[in-house]
């Protein structure tokens, strides 16, 4: 039987109540901040956030304050999965023993890419493995942004960061292709994970429904949210949503769900736009030569095929 949750029908019907309030030191046009607001809106009042170190810790809690209407705790960048596990078992046991009268809360980790798939990987994997009833959200801005934009495993091939500057010896900047968190966390290696999805801030209703669906599943769920970063990706701050949309249109981001291992596409474009359309507007890619762009296009095309997307793919030049 499919899980039951109250589905949000449209932008207009999105819940009015805010749980991520005005008043935080995130960049003007911050993609992760949009995702935080949408997640909090979808999750509602009975929610506890675990916020490992990253922009969404440092920028949100500057200084001795924070924008959340619901309980929030810091975790180290290393251990969000472990702290959330501790919170989850505590609530279970305290409720069982009758020591507290609380309704079991939504426990949501809002971890950056580093805190999820790099330095936070071990704790995240363990949360998934042990089956804690928590929603682990990876807000992916494709870099260690809080420290001033350094490469993370999610930085795309060819992305310039302060640790991967392009130069005559390394013309492409970042040399590696990113990890695939969906495959790592929800590709079958963590049997307790029954639900995982990718989402994008450019598709807010879809994102909010995936939050609700993830919370409705008993046990752990994973959400991988694409969150453009105007500072790190160097584009004007008003373009955050359009950059996110371009990522989906070019296949630099795929929107799908994995429910009990079965993939459902949330958007199935009939054809993908060439990857240049996505790269052109971002300062972090301005140094790329045609051969690098071709490599990226080949990577996108291969992923589309592996994931089973039946769209017309742009040629690789």
């Amino acid at each position, binding site marked *: 039987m499919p899980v039951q949750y109250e589905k949000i029908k449209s*932008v*207009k019907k*999105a819940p*009015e109540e*805010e749980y*991520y*309030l*005005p*008043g*935080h*030191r*995130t*960049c*003007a*046009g*911050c*993609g992760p*901040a*949009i995702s935080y*607001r*949408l997640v909090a809106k979808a999750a509602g009042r009975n929610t506890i956030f675990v916020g490992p170190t990253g922009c969404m810790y440092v920028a949100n809690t*500057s*200084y*001795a*304050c*924070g*924008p*959340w*209407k*619901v*309980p*929030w705790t810091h975790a180290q960048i290393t251990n969000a999965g472990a702290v959330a596990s501790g919170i989850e078992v505590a609530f279970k046991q305290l409720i069982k023993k009758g020591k507290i009268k609380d309704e079991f809360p939504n426990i949501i980790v809002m971890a950056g890419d580093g805190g999820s798939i790099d330095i936070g990987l071990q704790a995240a994997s363990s949360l998934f493995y042990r089956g804690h009833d928590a929603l682990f959200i990876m807000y992916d801005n494709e870099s260690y942004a809080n420290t001033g934009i350094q490469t993370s495993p999610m930085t795309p091939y060819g992305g310039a960061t302060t640790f991967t500057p392009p130069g005559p010896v390394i013309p492409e900047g970042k040399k590696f292709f990113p990890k695939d968190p969906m495959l790592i966390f929800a590709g079958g290696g963590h049997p307790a994970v029954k639900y995982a999805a990718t989402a994008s*801030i450019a598709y*807010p209703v879809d994102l909010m429904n995936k939050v609700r669906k993830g919370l409705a599943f008993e046990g752990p769920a994973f959400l991988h949210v694409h969150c453009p970063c*105007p500072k790190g990706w160097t584009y*004007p*701050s*008003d*373009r*955050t*949503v*359009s950059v996110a949309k371009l990522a989906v249109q070019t296949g630099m981001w795929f929107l799908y769900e994995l429910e009990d291992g079965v993939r459902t596409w949330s958007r199935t474009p009939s054809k993908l736009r060439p990857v240049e359309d996505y790269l052109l507007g971002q300062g972090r890619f301005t140094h790329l030569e045609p051969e690098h762009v071709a490599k990226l296009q080949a990577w996108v095309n291969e992923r589309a095929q592996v994931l089973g997307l039946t769209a017309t793919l742009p040629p690789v030049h």
Partner: protein
Amino acid sequence: MAKSYPEVPFAAIVPCPTVENDKMVTGNWRSVRPVVDMEACTSCKLCWLLCPDASVVYDEAEGISFNLKYCKGCGICSSVCPVDAIRDVPELDFID
């Protein structure tokens, strides 16, 4: 004379805000201010939903307005507007 320090809460634990976090007012970050053309606005609420700072206010009777105490002037609202009903106006064109 000894320097005096602010009072600090136990373990730096602070209460959650309920309406806005007025310890971090960001309205003075703005170099452009959003202005909505109410004639053109269709109340689709996309700008409201996508504002990172929850500073687009929607009211059924009044329509769209902006919480200028916090709006950072990022311009997302005007860029996502499907009918170009929001303009970004230089902040110094306003006295307040």
